[in-house]
């Protein structure tokens, strides 16, 4: 693949910074009592979402998880709708029904982000089947965590996806932990083998990519996307990354070996891209502008009305 044009790389840089700032903002407003429930933040994982989603067309579908803020923002969700959803407001992307775990915009092809581990994997496979059956130049992009690779739904879906050549690309965001447990403590693998190796069980294409390098992620997903729409089957991509924060709001991350977080921060995805394109000097200004956008959106979101029970009742069933 040839390197993406500079303008594209600049957009990705902006998106990654926006995600970073938005996530920090979520934490800030959480502490102010504006966010009900819990949140699962993604600081550190920006490149995996931005790179992968950068390789998609507007028609492609996305399946995400409860740790899905970065996907929503990388896909271009309106910032106010994003914050309003997390605050449970009627002005939220899902009218306040979903909250932090379920921030999706179907008009952007985001069709779900379940809280149940692994549940999205078969769903993405099904969406990819729709594309295949209709002969469309379209895929389903499916994000999930390292921990999700141990549940039955992963196995069942990958088998059928490969069997039926579903137009789906699977992306494991391996952020090294499932909740508080390092992935190798819960995931039996040959010594040193990556999780993506499991695709070989189904004869499925697979690849490991540096999840902190947005260009590398983009390349890999673009290749996998091309393979899928060509009818050559799905790919299991493992993007190796790290979450800077704990699993959820209440987790201080005490289980991490000393120095691990710092080592990963030295390979910060924003830093890597910025220096790669010589934009280190612009970061400050970019951040300032985006921070203002974020702050304003969050402020507007906090003014949003609450939904009513009658509205909620209407969302259960389609006509």
């Amino acid at each position: 693949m040839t390197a993406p044009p500079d303008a594209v790389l600049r957009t990705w840089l902006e998106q990654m910074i926006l995600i970073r700032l938005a996530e920090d903002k979520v934490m800030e407003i959480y502490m102010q009592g504006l966010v009900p429930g819990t949140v699962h933040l993604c600081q550190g994982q920006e490149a995996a979402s931005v790179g992968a989603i950068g390789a998609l067309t507007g028609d492609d579908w996305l399946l995400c998880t409860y740790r899905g803020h970065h996907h929503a923002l990388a896909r271009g969700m309106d910032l106010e709708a994003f914050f309003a959803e997390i605050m449970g407001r009627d002005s939220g992307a899902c009218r306040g029904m979903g909250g932090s775990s379920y921030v999706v915009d179907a008009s952007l092809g985001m069709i779900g982000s379940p809280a149940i581990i692994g549940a999205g994997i078969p769903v993405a496979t099904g969406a990819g089947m729709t594309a295949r059956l209709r002969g469309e130049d379209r895929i389903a992009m499916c994000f999930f965590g390292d921990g999700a690779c141990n549940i039955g739904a992963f196995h069942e879906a990958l088998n059928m996806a490969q069997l039926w050549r579903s137009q789906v690309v699977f992306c494991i965001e391996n952020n090294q932990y499932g909740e508080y447990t390092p992935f190798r403590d819960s995931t039996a693998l040959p010594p040193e083998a990556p999780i993506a190796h499991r695709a070989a069980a189904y004869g499925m294409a697979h690849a490991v990519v540096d999840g902190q390098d947005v260009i590398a992620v983009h390349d890999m997903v673009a290749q996998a996307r091309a393979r899928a729409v060509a009818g050559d089957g799905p790919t299991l991509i493992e993007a190796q990354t790290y979450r800077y924060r704990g699993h959820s709001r209440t987790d201080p991350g005490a289980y991490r070996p000393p120095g691990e977080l710092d080592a990963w921060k030295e390979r910060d995805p924003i830093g890597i891209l910025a220096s790669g394109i010589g934009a280190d000097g612009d970061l400050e200004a970019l951040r300032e502008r985006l921070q203002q956008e974020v702050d304003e959106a969050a402020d507007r979101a906090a003014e949003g009305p609450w939904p009513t029970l009658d509205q909620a009742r209407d969302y259960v069933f389609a006509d």
Partner: protein
Amino acid sequence: MSSRTDAPGVAAAPDNADVVTYREAIRLALDDAMAADDTVLLLGEDIAKAGGPFKTTVGLYDKYGADRVFDTPIAENGFCGIALGMALTGLRPVTEIMFSDFLPTAFDAIAMELPRWRFMSGGQTSAPVTVRASGGGGGRFGAQTSSTGESWFLQFYGLKVAVAGSPQGAYGLLRAAIAHNNPVVVFDHKAMHLRKGPLVRGDDRLAEVGKAVVARPGTDVTIVASLLMVHRSLEAAEALAGEGIEVEVIDISWLRPLDMETVAASVGRTGRLVIAEEQYHDGGWGASVISRLATAAAPLAVPPAAVSMPEILISHSPPLEDAMIPSAERIADAVRSVCR
């Protein structure tokens, strides 16, 4: 073509009715739904090339092709999740689960995903998936292949649940489910597969969602029943008619939404209620019907009765299975007891 069946208790057939087996009615519903709407497609184990373990899809693979009828691996949770993905993107899949007892392997997809995604999205998406399962005892299949399963989803709000009490019901409920824009689980009963009854087909023969059917009108007692128990209740009603007791039999047809209007109207006239259910009482739709009537202060002349399964698991041994599943005699006895 018109004909009649003499199976006991089958309601008078319209003149344009064919007589078909219950299983064939299921197959015809699938066939007609696929013909009417090319987004309808089928997923299940051995349903394509082989025509289905219960022969409910015979000929459909040949007629509609490999892109509409899928032989799946043994992976119920996976293919019900796949159906959700298809439905969210514009298709209308029908999954066949074979025995109801296999549903628990797919509870996450069916009970926790299918009915909740639309809601969580604030109404942005919808999930028109039909899940079919064949349940019920009498086949001497033992504890893991004899449950009706009909009430397993009642506590999982968001799913609609249909139960087929006759060939016409099997056809109409399944077609209604497939046409419906929300997830529906449709149960049929294995012991009825070869039972015949009148059937009128057509796009105007879809059952109304949430509407119970009066399978036999009567004035003295109301029996509310599902699946095979509809048939056994009709048998009981016939016997009781000889004793001067006129029984109204309601084929409940939908467990969610539950048609309390039809039930309450009937009970309002008869003042007497018997539930006939091939399931345990606690946690079942029968208890829900009785509780709803009780909290609504429905004017019953005598306390209601429920004919349910005794609290034992289902054995492979024939005399025990027969003792577990409510018989026409047990139902008739319950009716007599509320008439005393």
